[in-house]
């Protein structure tokens, strides 16, 4: 019981971090049709910028400044990069962002070096918030939940309750109509791209000291964010939210499950013996392959419901 409760909390924290990253990506993806490969790289930039900025002005100003810097970088990428390759079609855009991953990776390594940064949780948040069955729940994780919930609310209000949100939503589904009505659709694109990068940067600021700030962090977060976007469905913030939390929970819960498929079959009278490949696969405990489960789920959903959990159009 206690393991379940702790796992739920930790799964939620990780899921919300995923959501911050994935929400920006899903907006960009559904609007511009660009699977922005460099999204996790912006996340990494956010963490590094936050580390550097926080050394001068402290963590909380950095929480604001670093995401804004990331947003500006995103706007620059859109205006001088993506827009120029846009008329060559989606493949060109895809390859462009793919190239950006390596460039940002290299730039980060050249600027900050190859070693992990000593980016730590600020002392004012470095205490246990409460004790649950003898396990501390760090205040910083609570803070992460708070920030991501605030972000969720903010994004939702912006998209649903403001005029900008209305135009963005319209541009998502009917870009030509919006353009005909006299709105500057390219500028909407830039705004969305910059906004998505800002959210990724924000995720980087609070994810960088929750995990470690190092050149490999983009590579480790990249694939799982794509899984969330595809699983949740294009253009659906709600789907993205559900998918993030589900993925977070799966990854934390899988670790706790020491059973394998073979254990499940045993009560049904199926006994697996011998040294065949099938036996090998079926007797691997779930804990050992936990990190693989999200990808299995993505393949499954692409098979049965290509538009994702709450998507409105096919991937």
């Amino acid at each position, binding site marked *: 019981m206690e393991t379940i409760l702790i796992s739920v909390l930790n799964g939620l924290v990780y899921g919300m971090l995923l959501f911050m990253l994935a929400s920006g990506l899903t907006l960009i993806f559904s609007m511009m049709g660009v699977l922005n490969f460099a999204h996790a790289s912006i996340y990494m930039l956010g963490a590094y910028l936050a580390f550097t900025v926080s050394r001068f002005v402290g963590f909380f100003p950095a929480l604001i400044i670093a995401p804004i810097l990331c947003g500006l970088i995103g706007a620059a990428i859109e205006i001088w990069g993506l827009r120029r390759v846009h008329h060559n079609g989606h493949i060109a855009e895809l390859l462009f962002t793919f190239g950006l991953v390596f460039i940002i990776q290299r730039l980060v390594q050249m600027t900050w070096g*190859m*070693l992990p940064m000593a980016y730590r949780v600020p002392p004012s948040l470095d205490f246990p918030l409460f004790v649950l069955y003898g396990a*501390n729940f760090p205040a910083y994780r609570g803070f992460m939940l708070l920030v991501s919930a605030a972000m969720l609310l903010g994004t939702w209000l912006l998209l649903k309750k403001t005029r900008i949100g209305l135009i963005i939503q319209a541009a998502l589904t009917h870009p030509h109509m919006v353009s005909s009505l006299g709105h500057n659709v390219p500028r909407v694109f830039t705004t969305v791209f910059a906004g998505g990068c800002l959210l990724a940067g924000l995720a980087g600021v609070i994810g960088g000291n929750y995990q*470690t700030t190092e*050149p490999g962090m983009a590579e480790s977060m990249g694939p799982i964010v794509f899984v969330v976007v595809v699983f949740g469905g294009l253009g659906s913030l709600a789907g993205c939210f559900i998918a993030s939390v589900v993925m977070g929970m799966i990854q934390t819960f899988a670790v706790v499950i020491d059973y394998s498929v073979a254990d499940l079959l045993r009560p049904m009278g199926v006994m697996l013996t011998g040294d065949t490949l099938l036996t090998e696969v079926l007797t691997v405990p779930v804990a050992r392959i936990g990190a693989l489960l999200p990808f299995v789920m993505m393949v499954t959903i692409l098979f049965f419901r290509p538009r994702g959990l709450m998507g409105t159009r096919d991937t």
Partner: protein
Amino acid sequence: MTSSIRRLCFAFVALSSAMAFQPALAEDTIKIGYVDPFSGPFASGGDEFLKVFGYILQKVNADGGALGKKFELVPFDDKLQPAEALIALKSITDQNIPFVMQCTGSNVGAALLDGVSKHNARNPDNRVLYLNCGALATELTNEKCDFWQFRFAGNVEMRAAARIKALPKDLKKVYLLNQDYLFGQSVQHDTRKWLEKLRPDIQVVGDELMPFGKVQDFSSYVAKIKASGAQSVLTGNYNRDLNLLIKAAVDDGINIRFDTYLAHLIGGPTAIGAAGENRLTTISEFGPNVAVELKKPEAEAFASGWRANHDTDFSEINFLTMLQMLSKAIDKAGSTDALKVALALEDAKATDMVGFPVQMRKEDHQLLMPFYAVSFSRDVKYDAEKTGFGWKTDFIASTEDLTLPTTCKMKRPAS
């Protein structure tokens, strides 16, 4: 506009090809092809080793090099991919470089071992020696041993023996957590074997393999470890897989030791920081504090010479030993011919920088060397990576302690 861009491209191509050919022009050096990851997620290790070798070569070349010539390193990026390493091996043999050296990754090491063996069988007049300075899987000098490989790094089993010998006497319950790939499984296997042999009183309350580099949140592992009642986590994890684990444990507030194999790797102390104080131990080849504790001013001067220009510590004493033994063997052989040098290296004895005896065993070409069990402490002269904490020696596993039997049945060349 376009033409200027084109001209720029040509300039780049010309420049880069000029740089690529430059090393081949200098003929009066003894070249060593150095294969390691210099790009990708493991680049930090390769990058650091390259700098360390630069520092070591200054000393070895100042001491006279070999045959009156200086050593020169020719780096090749393998991205930690066996296939890339074999391409590098091809260019090394094409350039008639007699030595190929590699220090990261047992999967790459296994591929190189095989590649070098095949190359030498097919090209007896252009043989190469494989100097293994960090592919640690035990089997590379046991089941898979090869005449053309010389391993100048303690293998996993030697480390496991040192690891278990150094465990405190009052430790009764341990949890094994390792990465699910060749190295992690090797650590898991050898740790269990030596626990049974040396410390049957210790109970293994958990034994687990985790996905390599994929886990983002270790709090569930910590909850599991806590539920098992373990006093220590025995782990071969390194880089993020270790840093995040320790971070999660500190967040949880659990009071537990981390008896690791590789926490001293570059970047580890920075990422772990105060979280590791007095509960993190590792098995290392050397460290500046070893020189202080053993009162070896010369070794201390060499280690602090490195510290003066770098944020990291010099711990790669076996790299120095390797190049010193190689230069002696080349002098003894009178040439850089792979076979002659190999025969001169076999059973070669030397003393390392702090004065301990080491030996290249003839049966399996494994360097027999000592290891230091060290813990992360404030109470040291030299801190690691400017963290305020450094590695303090708790126990020295001597060369004799770590002379373990081998199952190697080596096929020796005819001549």
